[in-house]
């Protein structure tokens, strides 16, 4: 009887500790296994190359494998769907007909050239371009890719209206109905990546593309590993492979970089930047103005002209950029100043003039130092959402307005598009979006300045501006397009409808000896390519 | 002859999850004015259930209850409280720990406060007026039980139902409380029912005794008959065992 009691007790304590060790031991497989077995990565039918077992040596960077961290990781690799194409492009797996270079021009990649004659574009492919399984990229395959994109992606449904015909093996034509000047730039968007539609069986886990790398291990919404594409059409590939750890938070990236577990990553946070700048020999940082714009919309229905002008004269972009310590460069207009369509002028900050304008408009300073007009205190309702440092900018703007005597109230929304953008319930609405999508000003102008545009929710409406936008839509000559764009933006600035605060810098940190991680290209959808090297 | 309190074939069953206990099986009882009835029985004999049914705290499954020939079966304590009062075994717990004695006593009277009646009653139970200011925790068990009796008298109840009120007291306090009840019975014709497992105590206090076993009334009679000439087997065993444990 006693023995049974003793054994009961012993087994209870032992069982608990045994379970702890074994489960920790087997844990190794369950976590990774659980994810791998459900993925068809290894078992896909005709993947010709066998999986190269990558040794994840922790000590320093092994010579040929690049390890980096990605802020996003999607559940699928289907290039045409959603924004998955952005990441297959970063992984160096998918390539598009044209590619954006440092100066925002669409330069040839898979295609040789694209020429517009009225509304008909003629696109010729480069010779020798082939998929990773050896099949050549034909004009017909390119056309079928564009048609599939129109079908599976809402944002490119407009492609279905174009007439696309393959003239011969290497050229195809696209008839856009009426003049469509920006087609060449749009073809550079990552969603236009080319896939071998006949050979690919599992679009989500193993698309066959033309890029310098192919997927070797893919955990949906997790880490991704790629290896060199042995028969890459574009010649030798420096790297043997790469690992992309999925890290949403900025701060594990910083820690991983310091502990040597990753070799480089982009969209560096201001905190991490401050740390890296203290050790220039261990990390080199490349920071260029990016395409992501932080701006605010001033509501013309609730704020009269004088108040809007005063606000724009008070908000000090340079000081804000200083606070965000190097992650943002102060903006003039919505576009990069060295782009042809980025040449606009904004009046310098002048708080004295701002006060004058307010007082001229009948505002007086009340007892506690705020402006009020016939008894009613001027209070700016600032609306923002807590992402991309907009919360910091909101606090700083509130602070700057307070110094001038303009009171303000902060309101955070979890989701701007469904709340203040849609309802217009704001005086000053902060928003952050990609202004320069593919090297052309039209998309941003159409989204924010055109009458009835989704983001023209501040009541901005100018007949002359509508006319110019109409012209820009069909103007093919790039120099003329830039002048039109500058004129349109200048009208909005003079009307004080918007306030362009800053352009997010595309900041990349690299370990010495690492280069070619698209650190000089201001677009977020480029990463490794054939030239990326690691010493 | 009109009994002040009467019950006719009272039944009560307590249903627990797996089995039902029949606490009272066709029990009759009666009490006359000025009489002191004792109910003897061991634990589980149903003596407390009978008292609770009498007082209205528990509703009987069947049977009727009469007070001066008026039926009051099924009436709750707020109605029965008009003509009877109950005193419990746990003396200290019979008073709200935060109340002074005075407030507890005043709470139990339905009519307006009558100071000198209160002082008179206190004298009868041999308690000093100063105790009215104290709380239950500052009094001894015996004092609390006497205060409960005072409270019952102050609420002008005709009948007093005592449920093992002296079992938790020491011998001297028990003797004191019993003495008071006896005196009240002889001087003020107090009618009372006294439930106890100690038959020796009942034999000294009560005029008539009912013996209960497993929910049935085994025997009932004048103290003399029950103690000297018990008829029922169980009563004999009860008296015999009690004799072995008393002087």
């Amino acid at each position, binding site marked *: 009887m006693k023995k049974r009691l003793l054994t009961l007790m012993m087994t209870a304590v032992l069982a608990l500790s045994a379970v702890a060790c074994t489960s920790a031991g087997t844990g190794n497989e369950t976590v990774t296994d659980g994810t791998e077995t*459900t993925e068809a990565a290894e078992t896909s039918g005709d993947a010709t190359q066998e999986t190269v077992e990558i040794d994840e040596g922790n000590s320093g960077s092994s010579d040929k494998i690049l390890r980096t961290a990605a802020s996003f990781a999607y559940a699928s690799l289907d290039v045409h769907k959603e924004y998955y194409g952005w990441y297959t492009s970063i992984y160096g797996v998918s390539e598009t007909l044209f590619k954006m270079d440092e100066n925002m021009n669409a330069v040839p990649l898979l295609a040789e050239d694209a020429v517009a004659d009225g509304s008909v574009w003629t696109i010729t492919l480069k010779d020798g371009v082939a998929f990773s399984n050896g099949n050549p990229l034909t004009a017909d395959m390119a056309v079928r890719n564009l048609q599939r994109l129109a079908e599976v992606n809402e944002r490119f*449904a407009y492609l279905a209206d174009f007439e696309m015909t393959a003239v011969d093996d290497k050229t195809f034509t696209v008839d856009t109905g009426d003049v469509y000047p920006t087609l060449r730039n749009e073809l550079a968007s990552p969603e236009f990546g080319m896939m071998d539609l006949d050979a690919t069986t599992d679009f989500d886990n193993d698309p066959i593309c033309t890029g310098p790398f192919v997927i070797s291990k893919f955990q949906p919404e997790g880490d991704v590993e790629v290896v060199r594409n042995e028969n890459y059409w574009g010649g030798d590939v420096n790297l043997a492979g790469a690992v992309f750890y999925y890290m949403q938070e900025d701060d*594990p990236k910083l820690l991983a970089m310091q502990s040597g*577990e990753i070799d480089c990553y982009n969209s560096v946070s201001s905190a991490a930047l401050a740390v890296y700048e203290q050790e220039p020999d261990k990390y080199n940082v490349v920071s260029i103005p990016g395409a992501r714009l932080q701006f605010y919309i001033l509501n013309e229905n609730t704020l009269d002209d004088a108040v809007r002008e005063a606000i724009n004269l008070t908000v000090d972009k340079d000081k804000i950029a200083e606070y965000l310590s190097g992650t943002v460069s102060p903006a003039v207009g919505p576009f990069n100043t060295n782009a042809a369509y980025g040449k606009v002028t904004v009046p310098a900050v002048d708080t004295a003039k701002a006060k004058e304008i307010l007082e001229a408009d009948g505002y007086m300073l009340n007892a506690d130092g705020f402006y009020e007009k016939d008894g009613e205190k001027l209070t700016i309702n600032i609306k923002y959402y807590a992402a991309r440092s907009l919360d910091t900018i909101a606090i700083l703007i509130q602070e700057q307005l307070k110094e001038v005597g303009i009171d303000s109230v902060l309101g955070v929304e979890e989701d701007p598009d*469904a709340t203040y953008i849609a309802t217009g319930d704001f005086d000053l609405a902060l928003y952050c*979006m990609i202004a320069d999508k593919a090297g052309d000003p039209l998309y941003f102008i159409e989204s924010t300045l055109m009458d009835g545009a989704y983001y023209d929710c501040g009541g901005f409406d100018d007949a002359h501006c509508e006319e110019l936008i109409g012209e820009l839509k069909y103007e093919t000559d790039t120099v003329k397009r830039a002048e039109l764009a500058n004129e349109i933006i200048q009208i909005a600035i003079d009307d004080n409808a918007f306030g362009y605060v800053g352009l997010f810098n595309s900041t990349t940190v690299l370990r010495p000896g690492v280069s070619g991680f698209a650190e000089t290209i201001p677009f977020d959808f480029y990463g490794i390519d054939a030239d990326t090297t690691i010493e | 002859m009109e009994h002040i309190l009467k019950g006719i074939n009272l039944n009560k069953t307590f249903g627990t999850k797996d089995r039902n206990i029949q606490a009272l099986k066709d029990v009759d009882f009666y009490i006359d004015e000025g009489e002191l009835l004792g109910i003897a029985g061991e634990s589980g004999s149903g003596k407390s259930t009978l008292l609770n049914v009498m007082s209205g705290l528990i509703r009987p499954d069947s049977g009727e209850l009469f007070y001066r020939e008026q039926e009051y079966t099924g009436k709750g304590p707020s109605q029965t409280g008009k003509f009877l009062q109950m005193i419990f075994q746990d003396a200290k717990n019979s008073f709200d720990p935060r109340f002074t004695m005075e407030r507890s006593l005043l709470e139990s009277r339905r009519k307006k406060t009558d100071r000198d009646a209160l002082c008179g009653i206190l004298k009868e139970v041999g308690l000093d007026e100063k105790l009215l200011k104290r709380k239950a925790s500052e009094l001894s068990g015996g004092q609390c039980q006497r205060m409960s009796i005072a409270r019952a008298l102050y609420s002008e109840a005709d009948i007093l139902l005592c449920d093992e009120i002296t079992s938790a007291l020491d011998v001297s306090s028990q003797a004191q409380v019993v003495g008071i009840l006896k005196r009240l019975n002889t001087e003020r014709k107090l009618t009372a029912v006294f439930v106890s497992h100690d038959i020796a105590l009942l034999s000294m206090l009560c005029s008539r005794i009912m013996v209960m076993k497993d929910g049935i009334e085994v025997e009932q009679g004048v103290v003399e008959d029950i103690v000297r000439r018990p008829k029922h087997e169980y009563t004999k065993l009860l008296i015999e065992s009690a004799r072995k444990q008393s002087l």
Partner: protein
Amino acid sequence: MIRNILKKIAEIVLILVILSFFVFLLLYIAPGDPAEKRLTSQGVAITKQVLDAERERLGLLKPFLVRYGEWLLSVIRGDFGISFKDDMPVAPKLYKGLLNTFFLAFTSLSVSLTVSFILGVSSALRKDSMLDHAVRIYSFIANSLPNFLISVLLMYFFCIKLNIFPVIASGDIQGLVMPVLCLSIPMTGRFIRQIRTEVLNQMNEDYVMGMKCRGVKKHYIALNIIRNSLGHIFTIVAIQIGTLMGGSVVIEAIFRWPGIGKLVMDSISARDYPVIMGFVLIMGTIYIVVNTLSDMLDKILDPRIEKE
């Protein structure tokens, strides 16, 4: 016996349905919707028609009751539907997340239970000894530390300063130590206190006095005490399972552990209704199963307990 099992199951199903209706309503009235979250995930501006087309496709325009009805029917058929975030089936996502969280939670639970069991029992048996004071101070402080604080401090010391543990928890033992530590410290704090009090209560029971006076050997008495306090200890553990699953959300976010907590956190911000609803059902069932199990275990270990 079978009758009340059926009654219990019916009760469980009823609770789950009410719960899911309440959460569905909560999601319905919340601002923002999955379609527009999906379209703006990379910060590219959206147009009205694209947004409406996407909403149509996800069926967000149907009235509330129709959507709830459809969801409920599909769940009854065992199909948890597809995620609004990336059109992938919800079930494997939840299963994978649950597996990882369960693995992390179970390891931390067994580690802290073993540690707390040994410390709790020995500190109770040697009351007011040095060990007892030390254990009580530890459990008091451990009870006052929020787990996010522990994780920040531990991560700072171990990962950066001493560089012992990797930042990227890649599932092997090394990557597991930190999250388990952060989960276990507050939990051991609670367990030790409860186990110690329970054992002390048992030591004051009359039967311990009875055994001592019969000259029963010390360690037999100790075994009796432990055996009797086991019942209560399992109920403590059952209650902890709920808080453990919750607590791990913070830890998963910080240590990028691909558990169900992190998955739910992301789906809440992406308004991914099917995943959230699936999570609600799973957590509800786990809670109820654990609770019934602990009740049964209670009954076996201490048959006297009458559930009122």
